[in-house]
């Protein structure tokens, strides 16, 4: 009976099992990325994921499926996808569904090398599509996972390829790996695990990631999403968000959505006292359903559209009190095509040339289409003013009233719309009554009227999120106005606008966000969809529009302002910390423009040169001090102290090393506690090395050198503890013997 071959490495079946595991994990990760996409494939992903997981855990399952089903699978997939292509309006979701089905098919069937490579390509397709369409931090994490799985998978494929001997194998032997038990497989994995291999893999992985990171930093930025053809094939489902028409209830619906709408990164937070009003949309036209952007204003926006990367606020004039430094906005996909503007600004910068629409009088800025990916833009010289300058408005209004155009100009907002409210005698009677109640019959200035109207509204109506519209005839808003029902911001804003218009003051509804939380770690505002808000703007009669927020609690009193300021400063919770990582991710990876890229490369370079210089300086300092220390006079006490310290440190290091070794061995052999003994294991390892040496060269001299040491090693490994020779001496001799033999 010959000596058994020592199975230090995984055998072919175990490698195949490992390949199965890694391939399945890789496919599952790629499937996971589909969750980031909005392609109506959730149920498919669920079913595919479950099937893949089952096949991963029970590798025998695919073998039990009748061969007929495998034969029918491919035509069935082709047929189903043809139907899908035919019936679906979008191409990309169909492509993704096709990729999911193909990944599923490849994952749950037994693969040879060719199919393994196909699986990698398919999984990569899913990952790349998801990555391009959603630049999110979660995706970065998945990409790392995918890289690790993919690298391991390729490595194992190579190993299998190298160790497979050509000859024909029986079908029985071909599927032998599926019958290994997981417990035994993992025990084997642990048994063959070698810390050198693990460390090597970790270093390799880190190097790959670092290299890709570096490449990513160096390559010129381009907008992947626009360069990539795929996103054009997606028609987006309307999500909650601001569109051109805001119906009653839209904002309150948004308020229930706790997801993040945008993050606003500030370079400087000093002087920020009040919660900003982020203006998105101006709703100037009254309809019985609510307020909406008039066709004229829309036309004005369209007419103003230019391909640009920069825009100026034409109404801003001189900025008196800029705050926040540079404001960088990162807006989640699906929020709005309108850009949130917290006040007047000096300059607006986009990431690249894009069709930008602006309206000076309404201070609106909008993109042509709602972006599929994160939208980012920057503002400079922001002043958080409640005032929108529009001195031309009064002239335009007068002209329009005195000399009404025959047909409305489609490229210009009709100023008369800002005076129109609910019509009908009943409605007008109620409004007239209320206006009289507010003004007491006097002709008030716009400012005065607005203040009194707000007081009146807040006295009559409380704030609630669960507002009920009172039933009855007539206009909704007028009915609510006349009741004592509580309401929410839209009701208050609409009521104030309607009242102001009834009193002869031009007014409009503005929707957007109010406030947000200032993150204590990274100086940025996090604005959630639940921060959505609506307020009114009333024309002051000659120069511009003034913000009026009639919602109770929205305009802070002095005491509230202080409390709010304190609240803003203090979000330093754990979740804020986690969220701040996201902004770091945006700053560094999603990034803004090439300037930031150059800055980052610069900082990397400075960091490396600086730390190199610092290291050198420290080393010089250290060697100087060492020299001085050595030159100081030595006496017995000092020598003893030093020697004691050195010995103590050496002992500690040795002990820690032993502890580490013990821990490692403990981990590897935790299933066999009774035979666990570091000396026995070390001796076993030395014996194995001697044997390997022995295999290589069996000169007589070498044999003799080894023989004595081998006997002692065997005694350490298998002999009774009481009869052991001193272990460390033996190990040392073994090392010497090996070296001696190798040199010969």
């Amino acid at each position, binding site marked *: 009976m*010959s000596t*058994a071959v020592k199975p230090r490495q995984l055998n072919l079946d175990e490698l195949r099992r490992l390949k199965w595991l890694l391939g399945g994990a890789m496919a599952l990760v790629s499937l996971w990325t589909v969750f980031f996409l909005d392609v109506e494939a959730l149920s498919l992903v669920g079913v595919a994921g479950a099937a893949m997981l089952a096949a991963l855990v029970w590798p025998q399952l695919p073998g039990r499926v009748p061969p007929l089903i495998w034969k029918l699978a491919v035509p069935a997939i082709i047929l189903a996808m043809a139907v899908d292509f035919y019936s679906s309006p979008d191409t990309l979701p169909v492509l993704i569904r096709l990729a999911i089905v193909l990944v599923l098919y490849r994952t749950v069937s037994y693969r040879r090398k060719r199919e393994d490579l196909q699986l990698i390509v398919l999984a990569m397709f899913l990952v790349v599509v998801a990555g391009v369409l959603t630049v999110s931090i979660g995706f970065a994490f998945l990409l790392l996972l995918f890289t690790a799985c993919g690298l391991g998978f390729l490595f194992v494929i190579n190993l299998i390829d190298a160790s497979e001997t050509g000859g024909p194998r029986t079908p029985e032997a071909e599927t032998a790996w599926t019958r290994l038990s997981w417990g035994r497989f993992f025990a084997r994995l642990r048994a063959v695990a070698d810390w050198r291999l693990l460390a090597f893999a970790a270093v390799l992985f880190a190097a790959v990631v670092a290299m890709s990171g570096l490449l990513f930093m160096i390559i010129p930025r381009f907008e992947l999403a626009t360069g990539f053809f795929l996103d054009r094939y997606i028609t987006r489902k309307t999500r909650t968000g601001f569109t051109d028409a805001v119906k009653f209830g839209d904002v309150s619906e948004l308020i229930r959505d706790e997801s993040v709408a945008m993050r606003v990164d500030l370079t400087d937070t000093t002087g920020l006292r009040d919660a900003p009003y982020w203006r998105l949309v101006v709703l100037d036209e009254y309809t019985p359903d609510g307020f909406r952007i008039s066709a004229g204003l829309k036309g004005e926006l369209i007419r103003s559209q230019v391909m640009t990367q920069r825009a100026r606020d034409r109404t801003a004039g001189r900025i008196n009190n800029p705050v926040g430094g540079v404001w960088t906005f990162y807006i989640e996909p699906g929020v709005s095509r309108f850009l949130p503007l917290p006040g007047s600004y000096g300059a607006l910068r986009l990431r690249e040339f894009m069709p930008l629409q602006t309206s000076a009088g309404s201070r609106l800025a909008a993109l042509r289409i709602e972006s599929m990916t994160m939208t980012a833009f920057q503002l400079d010289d922001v002043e958080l003013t409640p005032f929108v300058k529009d001195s031309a408005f009064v002239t335009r209004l007068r002209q329009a009233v005195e000399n009404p155009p025959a047909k409305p100009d489609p490229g210009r907002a009709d100023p008369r719309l800002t005076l129109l409210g609910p019509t009908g005698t009943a409605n007008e009677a109620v409004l007239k009554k209320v206006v009289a109640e507010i003004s007491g019959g006097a002709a008030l200035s716009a400012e005065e009227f607005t203040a009194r109207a707000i007081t009146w509204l807040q006295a009559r109506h409380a704030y609630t999120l669960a507002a009920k519209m009172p039933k009855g005839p007539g206009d909704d808003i007028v009915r609510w106005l006349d009741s004592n029902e509580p309401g929410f911001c839209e009701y208050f804003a609409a009521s104030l606008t309607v009242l102001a218009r009834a009193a002869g003051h031009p007014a409009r509804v503005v929707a957007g966000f109010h406030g947000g939380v200032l993150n204590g770690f990274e100086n940025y505002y996090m604005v959630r969809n639940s921060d959505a808000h609506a307020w009114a703007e009333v024309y002051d009669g000659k120069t511009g529009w003034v913000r009026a927020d009639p919602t109770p609690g929205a305009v802070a009193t002095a005491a509230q302002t202080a409390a709010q300021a304190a609240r803003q400063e203090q979000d330093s919770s754990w979740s804020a910390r986690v969220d701040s990582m996201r902004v770091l991710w945006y700053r560094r990876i999603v990034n803004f423009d090439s300037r930031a890229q150059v800055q980052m490369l610069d900082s990397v370079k400075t960091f490396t040169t600086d730390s190199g210089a610092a290291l050198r300086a420290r080393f010089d300092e250290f060697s100087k001090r060492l020299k001085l220390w050595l030159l100081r006079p030595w006496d017995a006490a000092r020598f003893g102290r030093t020697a004691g310290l050195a010995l103590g440190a050496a002992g500690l290091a040795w002990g820690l090393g032993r502890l580490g070794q013990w821990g490692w061995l403990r981990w590897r052999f935790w299933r066999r506690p009774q035979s666990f003994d570091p000396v026995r294991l070390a001796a076993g390892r030395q014996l194995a090395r001697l044997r390997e040496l022995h295999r290589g060269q069996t000169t007589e001299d070498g044999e003799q050198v080894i023989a004595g040491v081998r006997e002692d090693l065997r005694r350490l490994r298998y002999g009774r503890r009481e009869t052991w020779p001193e272990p460390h001496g033996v190990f040392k001799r073994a090392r010497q013997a090996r070296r001696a033999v190798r040199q010969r």
Partner: protein
Amino acid sequence: MSDFAPAAEVAATRGSLERLKANMRLTIKGKDEVIEQSLVCLLAGGHLLIEDLPGVGKTTLAYSLARSMDCAFSRIQFTSDLLPTDVTGVSIYDETMKEFIFKSGPVFANIVLADEINRATPKTQSALLEVMDRSKVTVDGEAHAVGSPFMVVATQNPVDYEGTFPLPESQMDRFLMRLAMGYPQPGDELEILRAPKLGYDAIALNPVVTRSDVLKMQALAGKVFVEDSVLDYILKIITATRTEAEFKAGVSVRGGLSLRIAAQARALVHGRDFVIPEDVQESAGPVLAHRLSLARQTSDALEERRTVLAALKRIIGAIAVPE
């Protein structure tokens, strides 16, 4: 500590063993491995079955082993008409003493050579097997102890099936080891051909160890240290034979114990007071192969033997050696 073999005593046995080996080499040429295995069997206190073609030195091996020790040796030629009493002895009536006295058979010796054991009837075979198991002969309700040490060296011929009664598995289990001699190397055979005389009378060996030496060594072999992981290795080998589809049945508990004691004895023969996995590997074939039978039919005994050994080798190769 007396449970374990003291290193000094182990070293002391080395002399005796070397002498035994050297002495046996005088008659058995070029078969060091077989000599070593037979010594292992002797130290383990087991019985030896030598199965090979006629005329390759089976009997010579047994004879030289017996003659090298200061022991009583007897030889029984098994034939189909051999009776149990021819083996064990018989009580006969003594006219002068007026009583039955026990006339001991050839089995009352220290080394008993049972030549061509498979040619006797099962009845006679089992008479010998009782002695092998119990080291006693019971005749007329009276037990008679055979010699101590007691070792049966049986030979059998695998090809000669005409008029033979192959030993059933349960009886094969009684033998600690089964060995095959094999043909000698050409050089060794030339030396055998040069030898002047033929026949067992030509074997003129002087005993080199005493009976008490052998008993002492046997006691020592049982005390050789077996480390836990090596015991675990033995256990894994034994259990693996039980789950192997190629075998009709796996190795018995006695088979496992036999493997352990054989490994211990081999360690002692190599001058060690502890067992290494190599001892187990080297002993596994001789100790286990004859206890296993194939699930399928084979054309002849030699092929079965080869297949069993190959399967055993494969099984052991798949088990991780404790390191």
